[in-house]
């Protein structure tokens, strides 16, 4: 019974997101109602077909923290890569690092990999069992610790079930 309610909430929240997207794109006009309804309906249906409603609860405060951490990391990432690219000595120590993750394969691990592909000097290049392989620009940086911090923030924000 509880799962049923959760699924309904999930459908409603997805429809609400797509409605927001429509309003941002097209604005709110009465003439648009049929098109908006079609777009939101079709998008929600597709989304539910491709991605089953999850069971996780969203924690707004932790999400805010995740966004801040992400923005901070993005800026550090960009600045770090820019520094290395423009430095005449080209200071790179590239290599692979295997990161042990607690996230199950599937959307959760995908979200994590996608987020961390924006971290300084790391790009996920595939995973196996409970490990994600990261290619790093500088293997001597504390990559594993940074990734662990990011994973913890992500779990707190989205997956604290």
């Amino acid at each position, binding site marked *: 019974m509880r799962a049923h309610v959760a699924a309904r909430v999930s459908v409603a929240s997805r429809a609400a997101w797509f409605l927001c997207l429509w309003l941002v794109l097209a604005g709110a006009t009465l003439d648009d109602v049929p098109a908006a309804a*079609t*777009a939101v309906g079709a998008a*929600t249906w*597709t989304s539910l077909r*491709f991605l089953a409603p999850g069971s996780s609860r969203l924690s707004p405060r932790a999400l805010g923290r995740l966004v801040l951490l992400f923005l901070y990391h993005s800026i550090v990432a960009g600045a770090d890569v820019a520094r290395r690219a423009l430095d005449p000595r080209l200071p790179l120590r590239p290599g692979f690092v295997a990161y042990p993750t607690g996230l199950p*394969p599937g*959307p959760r691990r995908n979200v994590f990999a996608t987020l961390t592909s924006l971290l300084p000097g790391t790009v996920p290049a595939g995973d196996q069992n409970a490990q994600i392989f990261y290619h790093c620009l500088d293997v001597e940086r504390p990559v594993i610790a940074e990734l662990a911090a990011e994973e913890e923030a992500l779990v707190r924000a989205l997956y604290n079930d």
Partner: protein
Amino acid sequence: MSIATAFEIMLAAVLLGLGIWTIVVRETFSATVGFVAYGLLVALIWVRLDAADVALTEAAIGGGLSGVLLLGAAARLRDAEPMAEAAPGKLLRATAAALSVLTTATLAGTVLLLPDPAPSLAPASVANAWATGLSNPVTNVLMAFRAMDTMLEKVVLVLAIVGVWSLAPDSAWGGRPGPRHRADPYGVLAFLARLLSPVGIVVGIYVFWTGANHPGGAFQGGAILASMWLLATMAGLADAPPVSSRPLRLILVAGSGLFLIVGLAGLLFGAAFLSYAPALAKPLILGIEVAMVLTIATTLGLLLSGAPERSAEPWAP
């Protein structure tokens, strides 16, 4: 020289250079990648020329579908390249060069010989926009003033799909088009398709709908929807329907069919073939456009999928 002029000269120079390189380079794959980048720059130029409708078409087709089509073709050709090693003869190459020069010279001459101001029907089409109730002049021309061209264009789409399907071997006739894509369900591609397809559907319908009054329309919207279908197919989340499916065939002819019916109704009850009664113009045009966007999205998606090559067995993801 102002900054804007310098910018335009630079844009044109880069585009010209890239165009020449795309023609000169030997390797098919490189030329194809160059052409995809060329499309992006052309979209910029259309915006600069205030032709946002054309820029949108270039972005929707060049950014998604034609890139996939051409890169796929280049990969196939590369596998076959050792067989087709024979270079074209000198005479053939000279003829091709001469033809290209002639075409360029004719185009340049035509542009230079245009009277000033150049003849244009633009003011007339803007002045008559009231007749349709739509305020995007491009949509007015496409759907009302030159509706005949647009209708025939939809017929061409039907012919194109017939042409692609006719390449099917007899054993696969009625089956599903293209190879069966299987991807890691936990992979990056599947993840992207799960997130992006619904967003793309909203954007596609928006681009279609906004075409009545702003740049956009059925073709651009349909191309975006087709790209999303293609993305889901490539990620192994969806599959093309068998070509024997009756609903599918109905959708494929819906655009041109409805256009034709409305056109004939104009002949019977109104002034001429494809004439709309002023009171009904807007709903009629909208109805045709809805049918067209379905037809365009389905046709483009199927054109990209290719000829039927598998049985129509149901497919489990």
